[in-house]
């Protein structure tokens, strides 16, 4: 690559200044004249029959404009879709039910909608809706729910919504060869995304009778789903995506959009609807809890020979993205290790808990906790250094993934990142406190970026070079805070040789911007980055061609930069970009381009034994921590955290570091304090005072080390980092706890109480 | 800066339900800036564009007795708040008072006529008021009432100049009384403006009473040609008691044109108005004469 002017530089993001000034209008910072306020009535039981709903009193309340129940929804039941372009078959389709009808499946499920003149009236009206429930027993434990004769959550004849398998080699033979076998069960809890901006938006009908929904969504392609619910043509629903105050997968499913659409459609007035924090925690998706039974076998020298795992996950009340999340978990189940004999079975089960779906890491963080804990146990048992055992077994260039057999032909940075992370911990910290023990932990991992290849993923971007040399970009890309929008500006600026200040971008509008696909699956740098690159390069080609004619030189001799077209190695010879633009305009040469980037396409795999390529590529990383554990109270303090990833190419190092640092702390919360506690389907942690996430005072010194192999599929060799960044910190911390005090915490979060119960067994058993 | 989007000044508003209440209010505030709201089509425009100061506004439209139109052999009594559009829809107006009918119809647009009233048009005292010449040729009288009593004043005497009338602040026009015209009379209205429904360059009304081939009596009133509607008395004199012929009418028209004292303004020059007046008067005379049942010879 030639020298970059903008790419690779830690420059401020396009959106940062408006955010620092408080000028950016998020979904809730918007009102329209005559706007009504929407409110959702949520079920108060996790499992119940709805005998009847009487909305009379609610409707009679002055100021109420609409009270809707399932009966008012034109197509109350459709299927969940996520903007995929290919048919993926029944295995991946879940029921999308807008409002509970006849039966409620989880506490918090939407039962009715209200629109009223004020928020207060809407709330009062919702309270006046009389729902006559007949409570049902329900089932809340996925293991129980799997058993024959279990209470049936849905209308089907089983609670199991998907089973996936993966195997290679001969598992029996593998264990027979093993000299050491370790077997254990690990559990991870429900987790909330805890973005600071709750779900919400404003909708209105315009004069074209189009329902406009201004909302924070990671998947603006849901406009199609909303249209189908209403029985309208797809082009009669428009999403205007706003910058999101965080998404992390929680704004990947439809949240409030359908409600907004229904209310505005029925009342013909603008409607605003926002979830309170309590509603957000109660009603939107959670990260899947998993029960993971693992067995690994190794030789005495630490070489892995067999791994068998059974993963059971709790889908909650509706499938949503569960099959896909479980597919990720299955593929990640053997970790980044070369193991000749592997057998994985994954089950995903409906219960009457809040539904689970995408959450940063998408099925990867859960098995990572299990296999990275096991690797550590193995290391201790065999008295091998934690780094060494990983070095010995990890995938390297040319090797393949032990679950699916997908071969890695590009650089696999695993040994490198592991070594760097481990080394960066530096000297062990000294602590004065006699009750504190220091420990270190390491974890390595891999995670895909880009959507599954059988989904046939594409992205589009439109770039236009204006006659004054400024650039206009249009991309459907949703920005959840990761800098997705700014990234495209940076690429266009680099390619067209203009400064960032000359770029304007319109984003996330299904009517006006070319659809760029979802901001999920860590795919936007890769997919939309490439689409932008393609469009910008096409324009660049035309500019250079024209300049070559004008300068009478070979186009290959020309480069573009600093708003000039310059002769390579002779910067004195150049044409101002403006002059070339003028010439192009005079001759009618198109200085705009809408380009599409296509990921690799494959067939839907055999789900009972998933083999071959199902992801475009993976990002490899390692995380290492040093912690202290208070042996009397069980309190853990993370002292230092190192996160090291091969990011391929850091297009904006500030943004990449931001993902790695933020992802680490997201993962640290998972490890130590975060859990949505549900007791018989009732959420006991409905607010930020019960659902706690790390504060600044909890955060250790964080060091982000970027390895730039240039081997990614994204623009300039970039890889995705958003989700990988958070997916292995939890096992690193668990390993550090073991290192410090010799207890193995097998269920997250590793609270002081859990650690103390493990440390002081005698005390607690005596009571 | 005035704004046509808003009324920028604040005032107190009353909507009395009886005439007495209205008169009491008028009396009470006679020393302040008090205005009467009937149709509002002139008043509000003035408030918006001329910064006319108002402290109190009295809406007469809620007073039932002012909404009535009474007809009998004597003639017509039209309540103060009857909208013009209601008058134009009444057969009696169209048949017996064609000049008034035509005057109203020529005015503005239906929406304005749905709002505007006769007293409003008169009290506005515009030289171009389209109902004024007709009312004058019919010798209409205004019932002017106040807390202290009432008086009847002919429209002609009521008007004093541009925007000026003889009405006092504690008074209001409660009724317009138009006597029934004799059976062998005829009347007509004519108006020239740039486009339809515009303010008149010239408007005029003529009433003639016929006795055989003779013109027994005549009234010719022109608007927009002086500070107030003007009665062309000498022209009338030329007609009275004379045998009507085309020639005579041409002569009368010339005389009428000489009597007016037009001004130059944005709508027209004085000279043009004079020429126009002559032609219009002649044509209208013919029409009124025909309507009176007369025939024209020569």
């Amino acid at each position, binding site marked *: 690559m030639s020298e970059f002017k903008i790419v690779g530089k830690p420059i401020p993001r396009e959106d940062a200044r408006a955010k620092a000034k408080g000028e950016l209008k998020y979904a809730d910072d918007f009102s329209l004249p005559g706007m009504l306020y929407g409110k959702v009535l949520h079920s108060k039981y996790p499992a119940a029959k709805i005998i009847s709903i009487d909305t009379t009193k609610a409707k009679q309340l002055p100021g109420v404009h609409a009270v809707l129940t399932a009966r008012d929804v034109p197509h109350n039941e459709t299927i969940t879709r996520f903007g995929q372009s290919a048919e993926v078959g029944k295995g991946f389709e879940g029921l999308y039910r807008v409002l509970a009808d006849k039966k409620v499946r989880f506490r918090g499920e939407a039962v009715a909608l209200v629109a009223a003149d004020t928020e*207060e009236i809407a709330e*009062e009206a919702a309270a006046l809706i009389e729902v006559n429930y007949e409570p049902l027993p329900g089932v809340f434990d996925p293991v129980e729910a799997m058993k024959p004769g279990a209470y049936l959550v849905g209308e089907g004849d089983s609670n199991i919504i998907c089973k996936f398998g993966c195997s290679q080699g001969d598992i029996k033979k593998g264990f027979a060869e093993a000299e050491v076998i370790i077997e254990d069960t690990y559990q991870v809890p429900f987790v909330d995304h805890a973005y600071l901006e709750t779900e919400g938006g404003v909708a209105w009908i315009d004069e074209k009778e189009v329902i406009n929904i201004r909302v924070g969504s990671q998947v603006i392609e849901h406009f199609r789903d909303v249209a189908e619910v209403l029985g309208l043509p797809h082009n009669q629903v428009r999403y205007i995506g706003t910058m999101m105050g965080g998404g992390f997968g929680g704004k990947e499913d439809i949240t409030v959009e359908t409600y907004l659409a229904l209310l505005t459609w029925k009342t013909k007035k603008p409607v605003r609807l926002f979830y309170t924090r309590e509603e957000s925690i109660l009603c939107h998706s959670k990260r899947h809890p998993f029960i993971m039974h693992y067995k690994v076998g190794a030789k005495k020298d630490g070489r892995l020979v067999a791994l068998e795992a059974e993963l059971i996950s709790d889908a909650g009340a509706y499938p949503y993205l569960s099959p896909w999340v479980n597919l990720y978990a299955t593929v990640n189940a053997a970790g980044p290790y070369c193991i000749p004999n592997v057998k994985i079975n994954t089950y995903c089960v409906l219960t009457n808990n809040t539904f689970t779906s995408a959450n940063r890491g998408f099925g990867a963080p859960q098995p990572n906790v299990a296999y990275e804990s096991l690797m550590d146990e193995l290391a201790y048992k065999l008295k091998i250094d934690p780094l060494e055992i990983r070095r010995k077994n990890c995938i390297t260039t040319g090797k393949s993934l032990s679950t699916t057999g997908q071969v890695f032909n590009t650089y696999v940075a695993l040994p490198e990142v592991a070594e760097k992370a481990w080394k960066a911990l530096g000297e062990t910290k000294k602590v004065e406190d006699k009750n504190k023990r220091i420990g270190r932990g390491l974890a390595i991992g891999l995670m895909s970026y880009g959507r599954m290849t059988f989904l046939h993923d594409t992205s589009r971007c439109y770039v236009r070079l204006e006659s004054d040399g400024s650039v206009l970009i249009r991309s459907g890309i949703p920005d959840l805070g990761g800098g997705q929008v700014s990234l495209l500006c940076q690429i266009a600026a680099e390619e067209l040789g203009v400064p960032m200040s000359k770029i304007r971008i319109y984003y996330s509008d299904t009517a006006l911007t070319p659809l760029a696909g979802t901001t999920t699956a860590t795919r936007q740098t890769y997919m939309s980055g490439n689409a932008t690159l393609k469009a910008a390069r096409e324009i660049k080609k035309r500019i250079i061609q024209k300049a070559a004619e004008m300068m009478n030189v070979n186009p290959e001799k020309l480069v573009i930069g600093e708003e000039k077209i310059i002769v390579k190695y002779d910067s004195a010879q150049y044409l101002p970009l403006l002059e070339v633009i003028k010439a192009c305009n005079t001759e009618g040469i198109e200085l705009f381009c809408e380009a599409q980037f296509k990921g690799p396409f494959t067939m839907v795999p055999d789900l009972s034994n998933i083999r071959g390529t199902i992801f475009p590529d993976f990002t490899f990383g390692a995380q290492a921590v040093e912690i202290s554990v208070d042996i*009397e*109270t069980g*309190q853990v303090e993370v002292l230092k955290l190192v996160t090291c990833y091969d990011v391929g190419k850091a297009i904006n190092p500030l943004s990449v570091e931001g993902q790695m640092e933020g992802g680490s702390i997201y993962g640290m919360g998972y490890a130590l*304090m975060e859990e949505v*506690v549900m007791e018989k389907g009732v959420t*006991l*942690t409905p607010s930020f*005072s*019960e659902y*706690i996430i*790390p*504060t*600044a*005072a*909890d955060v250790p010194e964080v060091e982000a080390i970027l390895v730039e192999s240039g081997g990614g599929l994204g623009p300039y060799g970039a890889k995705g980092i958003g989700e990988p960044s958070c997916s292995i910190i939890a096992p690193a911390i668990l390993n550090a706890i073991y290192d410090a005090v010799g207890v193995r915490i097998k269920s997250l979060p590793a*609270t*002081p*109480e859990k650690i*103390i*119960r493990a440390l*002081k067994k005698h*005390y*607690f058993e005596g*009571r | 800066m005035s704004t046509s989007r808003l009324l920028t000044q604040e005032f107190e508003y009353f909507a009395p339900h009886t005439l007495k209440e209205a008169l009491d209010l008028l009396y009470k505030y006679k020393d302040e800036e008090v205005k009467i709201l009937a149709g509002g089509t002139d008043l509000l425009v003035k408030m918006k564009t001329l910064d006319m100061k108002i402290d109190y506004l009295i809406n007469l439209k809620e007073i039932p007795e002012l909404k009535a139109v009474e007809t009998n052999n004597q003639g017509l009594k039209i309540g103060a708040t009857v909208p013009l559009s209601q008058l134009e829809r009444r057969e009696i107006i169209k048949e017996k008072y064609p000049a008034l009918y035509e005057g109203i119809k020529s005015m503005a647009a239906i929406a304005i006529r749905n709002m505007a009233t006769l007293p409003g048009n008169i009290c506005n005292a515009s030289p171009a008021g389209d109902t004024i010449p007709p009312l004058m040729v019919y010798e209409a009288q205004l019932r002017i009432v106040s807390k202290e009593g009432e008086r009847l004043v002919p429209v002609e005497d009521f008007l004093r100049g541009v925007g000026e009338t003889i009405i006092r602040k504690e008074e209001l026009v409660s009724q317009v009384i138009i006597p029934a015209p004799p059976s062998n009379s005829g009347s007509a209205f004519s108006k020239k403006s740039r486009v339809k429904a515009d303010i008149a360059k010239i408007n005029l009304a003529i009433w003639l009473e016929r006795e055989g081939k003779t013109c027994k009596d005549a009234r010719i009133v022109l608007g927009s040609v002086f500070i107030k509607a003007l009665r062309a008395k000498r022209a009338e004199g030329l007609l009275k008691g004379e045998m009507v012929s085309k020639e005579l009418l041409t002569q009368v028209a010339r005389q009428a044109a000489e009597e007016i004292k037009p001004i130059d303004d944005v709508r027209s020059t004085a000279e043009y108005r004079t020429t126009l007046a002559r032609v219009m008067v002649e044509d209208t005379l013919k029409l009124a004469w025909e309507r009176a049942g007369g025939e024209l010879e020569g």
Partner: protein
Amino acid sequence: MSQFRYISPKTKEEVLKILEEEKSEACIVAGGSNVLPYIRDKIIPPKLLLDISGIEELNYIKKNGSNWRIGATTTISDLISSKIIREECNILCQAAEQFADPLVRNKATIGGNLADASPAADTAPPLLALDAGLEVESKGKKREIFLKDFFLGPRKTALQDDEMITGINFKSDSLNKPGCFIKLGLRQAMAISVVTVAMVLEIEENRVKDIRVAMGSVAPIPLRLFNAEEFLKNKHLNDDLIEEAKNKVYEEVNPISDIRASAEYRCYISGILFKRALEKLTNQTS
């Protein structure tokens, strides 16, 4: 619809007058950090919100000889920034510094924290350990309630409908003894305590001359541990004695299990924190 009313008197007398008239219809708002969430969660029905945050005469920290008086609307930040508290009543400063977070500390008041009567109120244990009394006033009447008698249960106090806390007082004889406050929460800020302990200790010739211990989040109310205190008085402190004293603590506390911790863990931690406080204070003394 909303029937909340709002008034923000400028003097204490006005407040007392309104309280006399409105009684339980009035809800005193000092900082607001508890009341607003209660309103939002409909824990408080519509009432008169009686905002006392603007009453300057109740915002003071005074020391007169050995007598301390702190006005009810003194904020937690005021406590932290008070030099005299930091230097001469550090136990309260320690508690204030671990209270919620810096932003909440800017508004939350000491009177409000006590009146809220949460078992986890962070200012309660140190004030219990200081043997504090509350100045409680109603229209034309003033009385003192010892803090140990003030808490009746979660969110229940000995305050009458027409009364308000106007100040907190304690004597500083106890302050000649070092004091400490330890909080165990699940994170470093904005943590509702799992267990807190506050202790003042006087050692004379290696014997416990005087000790006062109070704990938070271990019982329905902030708890003074009289039995443990009695047990230790006049005894020589050593490891065995401390272990024995921990058992007294276990007997005295009566925690609940909730989302943050189980009763067993709280009980265990109360012993640990008790021991740590003792160790810390003896180390400081020696």
